[in-house]
Structure formats: structure tokens, C-alpha cells
């Protein structure tokens, strides 16, 4: 990988990497560190990482850095038990339009994502937010394609339930 190619890749993917880290870690300083580390590691491994494989490599590296950070924080195990309720559903929910206009939609979605386990959050963010192809997500997370799809369907259902209870989806 040439220097100019590295510069192009960083310019192209730095926001994606940072967004992912931010969604997983929910901490601006930690997300920034993880994004920077991933981009710097790409430079250090530029001799072996092909240009066309840089994006999955970056996502995998960012994901691993985030997971390491979460382990360091010793996140409580109950985060991923799948039964939390973000908010009780209001009798007459504000709906996505009202939430968006009040600036609360992003906050409600973030809270719903927060309630997912890191694994569920990872597949949701990579697939639904960043629209990455399945094979790339499977490579990034180190799981077979079938496992990935099953995890994605389960994560979708959990998130849908949370957003429904929060009044975001009808």
C-alpha cells in the first residue's frame, strides 16, 4: 500500500470507523482513541493489508479495539440479557416525526442501541447503519455467515421491541 493510498483510505473511512466506535463505546474520548489506533495500525500493517481489503480490516480492528476497551471497563454482564426496557411506551407516543423535530430521536435510538449487547450492537451498526455487506461483517466479527444472519435477525427483533416500547416505531 502506497502512502497516497493510505491517505485516501483514512480520508474515506475515518468517520465510519469513528461512528462505529462511538456507537459501541458511547464515550467520545474512548471512541476517538479506538478510531485513531485502528487508523494508525493500518499504517503499521500497510505492507500486508491490501487496498481492497482495507475496509474490512479497519472494521475488524476497530471492533476488536472496542471490545478490548469494553472488557477493560468490566461492563456488567446483564447488559446483554435481552430483557431491558428502554422506556415504557407512552399511551400516545410522540412518533418518529415529533422525536426528530425535537432532537430526541437520535437520543432514543442511541439508548435503545445501548441496551443491546455489544455483539448485537455491532451487527446492527455494521449492517443497518453502515450498510456493509454480509461477508465483510462476518469477516470483521470473525463469525460464519449463517451465524451472522441469525445474530442479525435476533438483534433486529430486540431493537424493534425497544423502539416500539419507546414509541419510536408505530
Amino acid at each position, binding site marked *: 500500500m502506497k*502512502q497516497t493510498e493510505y491517505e485516501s483510505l483514512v480520508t474515506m473511512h475515518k468517520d465510519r*470507523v469513528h461512528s462505529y466506535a462511538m456507537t459501541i463505546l458511547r464515550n467520545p474520548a474512548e471512541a476517538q482513541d479506538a478510531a485513531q489506533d485502528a487508523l494508525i495500525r493500518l499504517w503499521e500493517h500497510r505492507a500486508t493489508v491490501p487496498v481492497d481489503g482495507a475496509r474490512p480490516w479497519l472494521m475488524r480492528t476497530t471492533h476488536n479495539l472496542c471490545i478490548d476497551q469494553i472488557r477493560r471497563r468490566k461492563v456488567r454482564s446483564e447488559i446483554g440479557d435481552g430483557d431491558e426496557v428502554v422506556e415504557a411506551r407512552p399511551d400516545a407516543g410522540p412518533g418518529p416525526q415529533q422525536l426528530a423535530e425535537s432532537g430526541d430521536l437520535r437520543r432514543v435510538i442511541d439508548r435503545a442501541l445501548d441496551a443491546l449487547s455489544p455483539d448485537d450492537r455491532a451487527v446492527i451498526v455494521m449492517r443497518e447503519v453502515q450498510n456493509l455487506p454480509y461477508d465483510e461483517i462476518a469477516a470483521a466479527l470473525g463469525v460464519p455467515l449463517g451465524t451472522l444472519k441469525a445474530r442479525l435477525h435476533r438483534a433486529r427483533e430486540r431493537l424493534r421491541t425497544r423502539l416500539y416500547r419507546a414509541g419510536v416505531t408505530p
Partner: protein
Amino acid sequence: MERFHRVLDSDLMDAADRQAMESHLRVCSECAEKAGQLREMQDLLRGMAERPLPDDATEQVWQRTVRAAPSVGRRAPDWRFAAAAAVVVLGTWIGVGLYPDPIDRGPAVAEAERAAREVRMVLQLTANALKRTEEVTLKTVFTEGVSPALKKVGVTWPQAPVRGVGDEG
């Protein structure tokens, strides 16, 4: 619902599967509601804005990667250039000390000339010491058999006299 997930995943479904799913959604209000929620949720998530990496953080990445890399063709400065630069600096310093002002020479001139003589003496002693070190080293190489290969090719010890401070004239 598994089929609807496959629709969301853009997985290939044959016409018969798709037709069966749509027929089911038309008659099952519960599945239709879930499908609508999933589709809306996907639209919401796809519409989430990215969180840009701050400019100062990006700058730090450049500094620790491409800007930290050594430039091609850049070499360490030649020691001879550094020595020449040192001589120029030293000479300028001595000159400024001797002639601080071309108009106002006054009583400081005698003191400055004495200082200059001392500096010249120190430099001469240093040069002599370096010269002598070089000669001793060469003599050791040639006379004590440190490098017999030089003798084989006919290179011999040059019998140049060693000059000291008091040998001038």
C-alpha cells in the same frame, strides 16, 4: 418473519417465496405490524448521521503515520558540512569580538587582540593534536603490522615530520 428478515437483508428469494410471504402479511395483522416496524426501524437506522472524527484527532493520525515516516532521499547532514559551518560560526564570533564596531574601536581593541591571540593558539594546539593523533595511528598501522594488506600492495609509511606549536618558521 424469517422471510421478511431475508427481504430486509436483500437476500435472494424466488418468486414463489416472495409471493407466499406477501400473501401471509395480507392476512396476518401481527406479522404485518412487525414487518412495518422492522422496515421503519431500518429506514431510521440508515438515516442516522455519521459522527465525524474531529479534525485535531485526524491531524494526530497524520502526525503519527505519514508525517512521522522518513522522507525519501533525505540524508543525515554531512559531517564536513557541519564542520565547515562550525568554522564559519566560530570565525564570525571571533571577528565580531575583535571588531565590534568599525568606528568605535577605543581601548577595548588591545584586550580583544589579546583574546584573539589566545584563541588562535588554542586552535593551533588542537590542530596539532589532531595531526599527531592521525600520524600515530598511521604509524601504528604500518609499523606494527596492523594492516599487512597495505604492505602487500606497496603502501608505506610516509616519513613526514610532526610539527608542533613551536615548530613554525
